[in-house]
């Protein structure tokens, strides 16, 4: 027998699908929804719908955006000779917060992890190489590709793999410095650490 009426159980199950949400939290969230006015729920549902409808991947850098190309790729004030490669959109936000980087980005949407079945073909990598050609980059030649994947084993393997792809093309490839807490996600790295990691990047 179900602990709760079917609609409540269904809602709890849906919350449990979300990352980091266990049974107790899912229960709490479900009962919160039951208590709030219907208008609030409508607004929440609409926000969910809208994000799925309007947000797409930028065709150039794969960042999440509501216009294509995204605001970074379209901006005339960004330095087009540099591309910073990150795993997730929130890593881009972490780099951006330092305010010391003015170049372009490339978002992979993941990192290599054989045990999770993620290989090179599962990353958004295919559109990186063409970007190094000036004719695909507003006539600007890319001088440096900064690999800012996470400082854990998966991020390291991903950076290594990409540098092997890029080296023959003659671009300068650098890796952000590992002076940050190792084994961690860039998401949790504070701005000062990130700023230093960027400043102390090394050749690959």
């Amino acid at each position, binding site marked *: 027998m179900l602990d709760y009426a079917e609609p409540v159980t269904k809602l709890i199950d849906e919350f449990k699908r979300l990352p980091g949400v266990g049974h107790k939290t899912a229960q709490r969230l479900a009962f919160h929804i039951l208590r709030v006015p219907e208008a609030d729920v409508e607004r929440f549902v609409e926000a969910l719908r809208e994000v799925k409808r309007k947000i797409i991947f930028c065709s150039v850098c794969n960042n999440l955006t509501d216009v294509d190309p995204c605001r970074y790729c379209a901006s005339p004030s960004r330095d087009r000779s540099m591309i910073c490669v990150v795993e997730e959109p929130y890593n881009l936000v972490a780099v951006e917060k330092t305010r010391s980087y003015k170049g372009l980005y490339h978002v992979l949407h993941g990192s290599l992890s*054989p045990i999770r079945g993620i290989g090179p073909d599962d990353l958004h990598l295919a559109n990186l190489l063409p970007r190094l050609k000036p004719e695909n980059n507003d006539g600007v030649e890319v001088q440096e590709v900064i690999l800012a994947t996470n400082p*854990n084993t998966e991020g390291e*393997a991903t950076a*290594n*793999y990409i540098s092997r792809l890029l080296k023959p093309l003659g671009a300068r490839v650098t890796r952000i410095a590992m002076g940050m807490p*190792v084994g961690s996600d860039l998401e949790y790295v504070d701005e000062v650490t990130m700023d230093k990691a960027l400043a102390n990047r090394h050749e690959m």
Partner: protein
Amino acid sequence: MLLESLEVHNFRNLSGKVSWGAGLNIIYGDNGQGKTNWLEAIYLLATTKSFRTQRLQEAIRFNEDLAVVRGLVAQSQEVQREMQVNLQGSTKSILINGKKESVARYLGQLHAVAFTADELDVVRGTPEARRKFMDRGVVSLHHAYVQTLADYNRVIKQKNRLLQDASELEMSLEQAFEVIAPWNEQLIKLSTEIHRARVDYVERLNDVLERRLFERENITIRYVSSLEGKGDLSDYEALIAERLRLRLQAEIAAGYSLIGPHRDDLEILFDGREMRAFGSSGQQRSALIILDLAAISVYYLWHNEYPLFLIDDVDAELDRKRISYLLEYLEGRTQTFITTSKESLVEQFVARASVFQVSDGRVVSDASKEQLISSATGSAESI
């Protein structure tokens, strides 16, 4: 360092708070009352691990969801810190003075060496037990080595999956190389770090080894790299890079990693013969004690203070002669915790020990030596 007191809730069958003595502590009681659980709680507080199980979850008392082990540790006469390990479901959190801490920082506060029946695997079991012994020692000196080991194991796991894929999907050697190279690159760096750290640690052990403390046979130890005989070990980084390149095909055929320090061993010899195969069970126990004492000395020389020393079921593992030698050797050095069910042992050492009697998980009496001695003399007078 000194563990002044320990408070435990819902960890196995334990509950309550105990104030320990600075020297020898004897935890005494019938079997099944929870003596070893107290040692395990101390070990957990010091190392965040159990010497009994990999799955700490099973140490949470049945039907409870939170187990707490909290101890007051004196770093010096002036500085006291409260250390705490919480187990909740499958998660473990570690705190110093009530604030969450990273493992690397936490491990710097307190250290324990444990002599248990399981640890006898070091002298008579598989190489894995000896690698763990060395790695525990390295971590006790360099806490960041915890991360090196975790990264190494992670990379091996990832690479093993690729090696399996490579044979199942019948990849060409070039294809396999392309996907495996980024992992091998990290293996080279991490393996070199691990190799260097272990070789250095075994050298330190060798420097302080009390080779003939219990027996007349001479004990020697040596780190044995799995790359021995394959080239110049003094340039380990270049050697392992070459071996990984040459053996890729063999690794694919095997479907798992054949090259790296996860295949290394520590050789333990007595009078030139292998302890694991030729040692009597008494000699093996002596050898393990000698290794533990060496680990304690190495720790002391590095940190200028002694770790805690835990000996489980001391009279099952050692005869009285060895116990006397050992406790004499430890006096004035470590804060020592031993468990026993033998009253005669308690009587033998009561004059220089704090004695704690355990019943149903609780310490029911902490008879100080004065009390026991006075009651002993008291009864003598009444005769």
